């Protein structure tokens, strides 16, 4: 997968594109407001995305404890409502915590580093191939075999419309 541009790069670019290219050309006040709402929504996404996975997992794990603590706070309170809270605590409060995800910035950096390593290996293999070492052909095939499904997945994930928008 691409590690550059990041999702944040793209969202930032779309926000700027709306401001630089669309808003100056829109006369209709309602359309102007809609464009600005789009910018606002996208900016909100930008703000959520960096910690989204960590926050979701963290909040999930905190809620497990909340159920247990609420049940404890109720003590021997009577009635169907108190019984339901204790039942919820015995179900949700027993859940195993979710593993905390590695921050995306770390996974991206690790991925990026190994990919750059493959890039350099490709240059080194070319040197061996030019010198006539057939084993380098085999080694390049190993790399291409790894890259193939990655590239196919990239195309599937990225492609949204046929052709080039804006050209004849």
């Amino acid at each position: 997968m691409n590690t550059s541009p990041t999702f944040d790069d793209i969202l930032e670019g779309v926000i700027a594109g709306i401001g630089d290219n669309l808003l100056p050309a829109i006369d209709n006040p309602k359309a102007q407001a809609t464009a600005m709402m789009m910018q606002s929504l996208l900016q909100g996404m930008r703000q959520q995305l960096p910690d989204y996975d960590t926050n979701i997992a963290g909040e999930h794990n905190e809620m497990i404890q909340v159920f247990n603590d609420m049940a404890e706070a109720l003590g021997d309170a009577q009635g169907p409502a108190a019984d339901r809270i204790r039942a919820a605590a015995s179900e949700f409060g027993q859940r195993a915590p979710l593993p905390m995800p590695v921050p995306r910035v770390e996974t991206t950096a690790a991925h990026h580093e190994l990919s750059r390593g493959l890039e350099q290996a490709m240059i080194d293999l070319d040197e061996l191939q030019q010198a006539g070492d057939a084993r380098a052909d085999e080694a390049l095939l190993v790399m291409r075999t790894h890259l193939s499904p990655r590239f196919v997945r990239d195309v599937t994930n990225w492609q949204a419309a046929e052709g080039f928008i804006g050209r004849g």
Partner: protein
Amino acid sequence: MEEQLAKFVERLVPEATSVKIVDFSPIPGGFSRETYRFDAICATTEGEERLPLILRKDPPALEAILHTSREVEHLLIEALRAHTEVPVSKSLGSEMDTETFGEAAMVITRAPGNGATSDLFNDGPDADQVDDVIRHLCESLVELHKADITSLDPDQALSDARGVGIDTTSWDTYMDSTFQYYIDGYKTMDFDPTMMIVLDSFLTLRRNKPRPLPLAVVHGDFNPANFLYADGKVTALIDWENSRIGDPREDLGWMMLMDVLSNTSVMSHPVDEGGFLAYYNKLTGYDITPQELGYFTLFGTANVAIPVNSAIKRRLSKEHMGFLHLYLVQSSVPAVLALGQLLGYPGMEA
């Protein structure tokens, strides 16, 4: 802008005593130049003449995808008009002084015809014309490739049009110096390591040089969007900004790739001649094989990949904030499949 344009057109049309610009509006077309359509109403001693024109202006240098000269483009178009039957719009002149329009620019006439070439394909409204139009397109390309280089490029401005050290002394020096440009240029375009498939193509091209063919003036961006047509004929080949001396198979290879990316089928026509390549071979006698076409699809892709991806890299490092460059990341992704197929990546065979 209109005021500057009026003064400029006045210089280009000496018989005009005054010029008025009307109906000035941007054209959402090419990705690499800012283009505007307008009419110039030229008053002369004999009356008034209305000229349908186009202003092609360079974008700011950091945003520019291709750094070539509008003066060279102007001179080539006029040489094509003087020495060949290749359909092109008349070029009135270029303005290289950036004080006038902010960047270098040129003014050409607006050719008649439909520029929405997708109308020819996929059961579009002009699908009945497709064979005739593509036949003429092929004939025009052959005429370009067979034209005398010294007539079209007397000053050798097209030998190294980007100023990157290309040596067109012979086919071999051209290919070798171009490989070096590609490989050296990789560092300017590697905005993401997934670009290594492009690096792979550069290195593979160098290891597998094909047989030579006579060098020619190539269009350089011969693709399904770069012509206009009417009544079964091409009325103009457009966007000559990437023209240069090169191997004629580059234009064919680039068309093959862009045909796929554009969801068109230029290469399948004219049907009665067995498709574009077969007809091209019949007219030239070059006997270009599908394997050679594949090689030059990679080669032509490399030629465009360097400037396009370099501009994207400058965008991602925030040297400029152009929006189009982000879209190009997405819209170019299908090219990866084509590259993988041509390079023989396992599991990506056609």
